[in-house]
């Protein structure tokens, strides 16, 4: 016991440990979608201000990740997937994570306000609050719908990017939010169907464990259908266009086919081929989101060169 205590005390946290607190993999999605929201907006932004804005959004997302790790340190220590995170591994003290999370949150929000506008900063502050308090502290351990509502936190970045450029919220930014919001549940539930999780041991209610795998399959399809509608609706706004719609047709047919296949299958089918369809659909879901946002970016590029007008768009 003494040895373990001494080892923990002498372990020195390095920059990498603090960086890991910020969930860099989640930050990648945040940076990409926020950048798309910024680029597709009809109002131009000074490149340096745009860079600072994206940095603030990324740091804000990282700060909420640190606050999440501080709050969830007890369950992270139980689950295999999270046991090596900086706090349960002993590299970073919980108090440090809290201090870093709060400081970076304030830093990101204030700097975004000074660099851009109050709406963008307010949305970032709300996103951090939503992820750290509403999702982590409240919903995560109390309802199997945690992923659905918590997914909103991941859906805000393109809306913030749009607000940075325009200073407003519009149907385009709401639909970009809706695309990520509706995409999150089928994406994570497809993963939950083939990954053996220990959420149950940690006391976190996951739909696969609280309501069973059949209900989860139903839910995946139930969220996929409105997701398709949102994806196509985005194509008919000012940021959509023929290229986006072409990409959307391909990706939505691909993903919807996978969701229907998951819905039709039984657990016996799934076990027999080692969850091949669930795995494939999960991978497709990643291409799905990346593809839609990339297509929006390409549309913005085409528009800037006047190449969409020939199609009468």
């Amino acid at each position: 016991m003494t040895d373990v205590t001494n080892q923990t005390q002498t372990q020195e946290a390095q920059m990498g440990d603090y960086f890991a607190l910020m969930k860099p993999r989640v930050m990648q999605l945040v940076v990409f979608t926020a950048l798309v929201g910024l680029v597709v907006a009809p109002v131009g932004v000074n490149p340096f201000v745009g860079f600072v804005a994206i940095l603030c959004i990324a740091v804000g997302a990282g700060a909420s990740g640190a606050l999440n790790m501080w709050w969830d340190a007890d369950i992270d220590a139980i689950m295999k997937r999270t046991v090596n995170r900086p706090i349960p591994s002993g590299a970073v003290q919980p108090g440090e994570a809290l201090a870093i999370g709060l400081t970076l949150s304030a830093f990101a929000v204030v700097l975004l306000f000074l660099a851009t506008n109050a709406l963008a900063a307010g949305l970032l502050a709300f996103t951090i609050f939503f992820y750290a308090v509403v999702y982590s502290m409240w919903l995560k351990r109390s309802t199997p719908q945690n992923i659905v509502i918590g997914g909103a936190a991941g859906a805000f970045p393109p809306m913030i990017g749009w607000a940075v450029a325009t200073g407003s919220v519009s149907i385009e930014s709401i639909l970009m939010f809706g695309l990520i919001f509706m995409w999150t549940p089928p994406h994570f539930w497809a993963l939950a169907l083939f990954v053996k999780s220990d959420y149950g041991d940690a006391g976190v209610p996951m739909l696969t464990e609280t309501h069973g795998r059949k209900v989860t399959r139903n839910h995946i399809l139930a969220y996929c259908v409105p997701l398709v509608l949102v994806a196509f609706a985005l194509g008919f706004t000012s940021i959509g266009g023929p290229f986006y719609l072409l990409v959307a047709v391909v990706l939505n047919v691909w993903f919807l086919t996978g969701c229907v296949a998951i819905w039709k299958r039984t657990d016996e089918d799934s076990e027999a081929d080692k969850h091949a369809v669930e795995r494939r659909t999960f991978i497709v879901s990643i291409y799905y989101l990346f593809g839609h946002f990339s297509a929006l970016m390409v549309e913005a590029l085409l528009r800037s060169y006047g190449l969409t007008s020939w199609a009468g768009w």
Partner: protein
Amino acid sequence: MAIRAEHEIHSRRKGRNYGVGLLLLGFIGIVFGLTVVKVLGLTDIRQLERFDHVARPQLEPGALEAAEQRAAELEATSNAEASE
């Protein structure tokens, strides 16, 4: 006397200290860059004075005229009361 490492914590925290140093340099760069962008983006340099959070009616278009009109109205009212 030259500064030299006297404690093992200097070598143990070397990476961390360099990291913090780089972050602070980056922060300075961001603040400087934002300042340059904001100042160069001003169409009228007098707008800069608005950022000191002090009310400057003379900088607001029409504010001076409105203040003069209000003063004239007040004067007219007080004259009317005096004559009664």
